């Protein structure tokens, strides 16, 4: 896989991650980061956290981090290919399963797998937050911002976009 041009590597990587994205794209963000930053050195940890922030600030589904990784690696074609690859296989699975869902809706194993997967997904999303924070938190002020963002989502029903806007504003006037 390493001999292929970057755009093909991105495509193959997201095709695989699409199937593994149980619990959403945030659950595979640590793996995307591991591949993109640690293994292939396409961007730094800080750049990855910034791309993730752009994806968060954009309206729409959270698979946009894949779009932006594709764009960073191979421009517009990379962005399109990464998006399609990230949601292609999972969409085929959803399409197939919703057509046949009635057959296994009431099976007991479905409930057991669902119960078992829930804490794994929480662990993966916590990992995602940890890794993004590690990439973005250069000093104690950034750590405070991370904690504030976490509290806002956890404890309030405010639109998270307010937090991103407030952080940008506070940084521009030199408070943080």
């Amino acid at each position: 896989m390493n001999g292929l041009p970057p755009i093909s590597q991105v495509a193959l990587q997201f095709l695989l991650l699409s199937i593994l994205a149980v619990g959403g794209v945030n659950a595979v963000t640590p793996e995307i980061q591991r591949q993109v930053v640690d293994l292939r050195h396409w961007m730094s940890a800080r750049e990855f956290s910034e791309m993730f922030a752009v994806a968060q600030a954009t309206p729409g589904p959270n698979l946009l981090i894949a779009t932006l990784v594709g764009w960073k690696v191979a421009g517009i074609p990379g962005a399109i290919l990464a998006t399609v690859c990230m949601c292609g296989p999972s969409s085929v699975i959803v399409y197939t399963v919703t057509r046949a869902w009635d057959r296994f809706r009431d099976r007991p194993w479905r409930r057991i797998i669902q119960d078992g997967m829930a804490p794994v997904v929480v662990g993966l999303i916590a990992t995602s937050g940890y890794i993004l924070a590690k990439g973005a938190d250069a000093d104690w002020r950034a750590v405070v911002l991370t904690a504030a963002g976490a509290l806002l989502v956890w404890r309030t029903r405010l639109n998270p976009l307010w937090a991103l806007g407030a952080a940008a504003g506070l940084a521009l006037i030199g408070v943080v």
Partner: protein
Amino acid sequence: MRVIAPTLRYRALEAIPPPMTSSRPPASTLTQPSPLEGEGLREIPTELDLFTGFLWASVRGFGGVFVMGRRMLIEERKWLTPEEFVELLGVCQFLPGANIVNLSVAVGQRFRGWKGSLAALAGILAAPAVISVALAALFMRYAAVPQVAHAMGAVAATAAGLVVGAALKMAEPIFRKDWILALPVVLGTLAMAAFLRWPLPAVLLLMAGASSGLAWARRARSSSEAVAQREMRSGSEAVAQREMRLGSEAVAQREMRSSSEAVARKNTPR
């Protein structure tokens, strides 16, 4: 007899199926649109409707498209009832992929087959993909300006916090439900993925397997406890029933005997 009466009433209640199963919609509701809803016929959306519906929801979905998607599907376009939404969402959460993307595929499939899925998928993805790339390009262009770089650092730190908050929010209910299952699995996953940085397939294979096994064991245990309780209860019921049966049998036998004796007495020729 006075002691037996409540258990009999309880058994009568038990004979009625629990509400969970009785309120479940008929098997076809997930894959086939139910045209009769409320007062009139629900119109089946075209591919173009599906595209524009999801496109408009995605553009308005700042800070989380999911809420907008729900509003569009249930309140504005009325493509799904709240119950249908919850059921479809349950399927989508169970499968890989972003919830709202999966939901668009499922809703598209429901009304217009694979063409509907493609239309809805294009609707939910097109605008956000373009906007995110435009924003990223804008940022990259001014990334060398110190203020912009500094502000972006602050935004990135906060965005990381949003993800941490999402994890905390999701953790709350599953810890409350069964922390003996949740605690080791969450910590184990965190250790492998965040600190050891193992590849995701390895983490998933190991943790999903172990966690499902644990969930199965805990479920089996709690259900066997429930069975034991039920057995205890039904055991005493059985005793009560036997007593009742014996009692009534005795009464009936006595009555039969006495009546047949009476008949016999009457019929026996003197």
